[in-house]
């Protein structure tokens, strides 16, 4: 694969939550990059820091969270250097985001037309008429039939899949460079998921928009992503191309994740085989274990694992992991 120019670079991002129980290091030292037009899958269990990473990119970490250090560069420009109002210019225009719950991501008090038109006019000085035309065009592109009529509908009049497609339309109205998709299909029926993803991939491909696909669904990533970042307890434990990750997983956590995928029909016909279960739980972010955060659950644990965090090591072209097994 040809390396494309990097559009978004995240370097040593630290986002901590200052709770009463102590400091929760939701993201501690995450680095990865996204190239122009590529689909980057970010996978990990709940609580591994995937969503907080996405919110950090937009500088919208909710209270009591705070971005402590690191850099996030969009086309070389460090987003943390921008003023709040410059940052607002970036949000929705250069980097947009779609959320897990399409049911509640649209404002129930306005028609979807109003919301699309408004989203355009916040960033571009265009007339209502022009904005409306663009909204209609965009709704058509996300396969919504009768877009002219649908413009007058309220969110509750649409199905879940339609709402998520409206969200995609809204997110892509302004041809952003990067689309952050945080579990975009988790709340949808399996049958609708494919349809929604299809629309999302087709449009971003046409526009050259890169996607950061945050999910715990490995199947989704295997099917569509170019590269994958595996996160555990606020750290990137492995990064590589889809083939690297699915054929040649190095980190014990990634291996465990892959073994935990149920294979349909697996237990039929053949001898019933139990689904692999990774022992233990993701650690509390306030009390991360010393050394490698994964060591209490790891079956290959060595002495050093509980003392020093492993360094990032390049194992092949664009294939990185953080594990003492390889150092």
């Amino acid at each position, binding site marked *: 694969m040809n390396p494309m120019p990097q559009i978004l670079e995240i370097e040593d991002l630290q986002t901590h939550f200052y709770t009463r129980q102590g400091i929760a290091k939701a993201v501690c030292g995450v680095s990865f990059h996204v190239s122009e037009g590529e689909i980057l899958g970010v996978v990990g269990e709940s609580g591994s820091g995937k969503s907080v990473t996405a919110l950090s990119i937009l500088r919208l970490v909710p209270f009591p969270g705070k971005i402590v250090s690191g850099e996030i560069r969009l086309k070389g420009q460090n987003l943390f250097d921008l003023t709040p109002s410059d940052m607002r210019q970036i949000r929705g225009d250069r980097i947009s985001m779609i959320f897990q719950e399409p049911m509640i991501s649209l404002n*129930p008090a306005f028609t979807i037309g109003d919301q699309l038109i408004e989203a355009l006019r916040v960033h571009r000085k265009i007339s209502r008429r022009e904005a409306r035309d663009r909204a209609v065009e965009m709704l058509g592109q996300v396969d919504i039939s009768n877009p002219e009529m649908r413009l007058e509908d309220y969110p509750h009049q649409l199905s879940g899949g339609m709402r998520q497609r409206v969200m995609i339309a809204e997110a892509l109205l302004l041809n952003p460079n990067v689309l952050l998709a945080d579990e975009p299909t988790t709340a949808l029926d399996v049958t609708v998921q494919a349809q929604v993803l299809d629309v999302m991939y087709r449009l971003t491909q046409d526009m050259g928009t890169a996607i950061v696909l945050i999910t715990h669904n490995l199947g989704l990533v295997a099917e569509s992503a170019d590269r994958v970042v595996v996160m555990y307890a606020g750290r990137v434990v492995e990064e590589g191309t889809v083939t690297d990750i699915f054929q040649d997983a190095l980190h014990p956590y990634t291996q465990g994740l892959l073994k935990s995928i149920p294979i349909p029909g697996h237990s039929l016909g053949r001898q019933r085989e139990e689904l692999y279960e990774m022992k233990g739980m993701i650690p509390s972010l306030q009390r991360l274990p010393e050394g490698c955060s994964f060591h209490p659950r790891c079956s290959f644990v060595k002495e050093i694992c509980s003392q020093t965090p492993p360094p990032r090591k390049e194992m092949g072209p664009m294939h990185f992991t953080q594990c003492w097994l390889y150092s």
Partner: protein
Amino acid sequence: MAIKRLLINKMGLIGALIILAIVLTAIFAPLIATHEPLKIDMLHQVELPSDQFWFGTDEYGRDIYSRVIYGSRITLYISILSVAVATLFGVLIGAVSGYFGGWIDTIVMRLMDAVMSFPAILLAIGIMAVLGGNLNNVVIALGFVYIPRFARIVRGSVLSLKGKEFVEAALATGKGDFYIIFRHILPNCMAPLIVQITASLAYAILAESALSFLGLGAPPPAPSWGNILSDARNFMLDNVWMTVFPGIAITLTVLGFNLLGDALRDVLDPRLR
């Protein structure tokens, strides 16, 4: 659509009709009244209801019917304006406080608690004593007293709404805080707000009557319903009608606003939309 559903609701329809009738009465008072509301007629003091004086007369021979009719103007003026003042400030305070939270919220809400800890009518009496008896001062006093109710309700709604994903989505599309408060959050608070407005209109009418009755409301010759009642107090045992009619007027108006408010609460419930 909301209006249609309101009119299908029987209680709502009755409430709306009562309020409509009172508003029309206030607008067309000169046409409906039979006498000058302030005209003193010493030949007809404290009379019982008759052909000439439908509701009887008071101690200065003024026609109570005409005074009650004109009184609707004062009552509506005070209740609507004071609730408007309370709504304006209450919504602003509540929205900012709920949205930004933190120390702003703590300070503002403790202030609101302090205002609320006084019985409303007592606080209004205190304010009137300081400001002096004047129609607009009644508006200020009642408006001030009702601010915390609106602030509390709006703050509560804003708190629950600001965590919603559509607000997060709005932030993610690069909209500013005040834009989000006014365009995204407040329109979703309308249902509880409208109900509170109608209920407060009813309270304001009662409070204005009480203030007038105590001599702290609209200055005496003005025919506010509280004043009419207050004037009638000394003659209640001789001529009970003097108190009955203004009393009915107050009751009807309050009933109208309450019925309308209850119906609006049902109609505006987003779960039924």
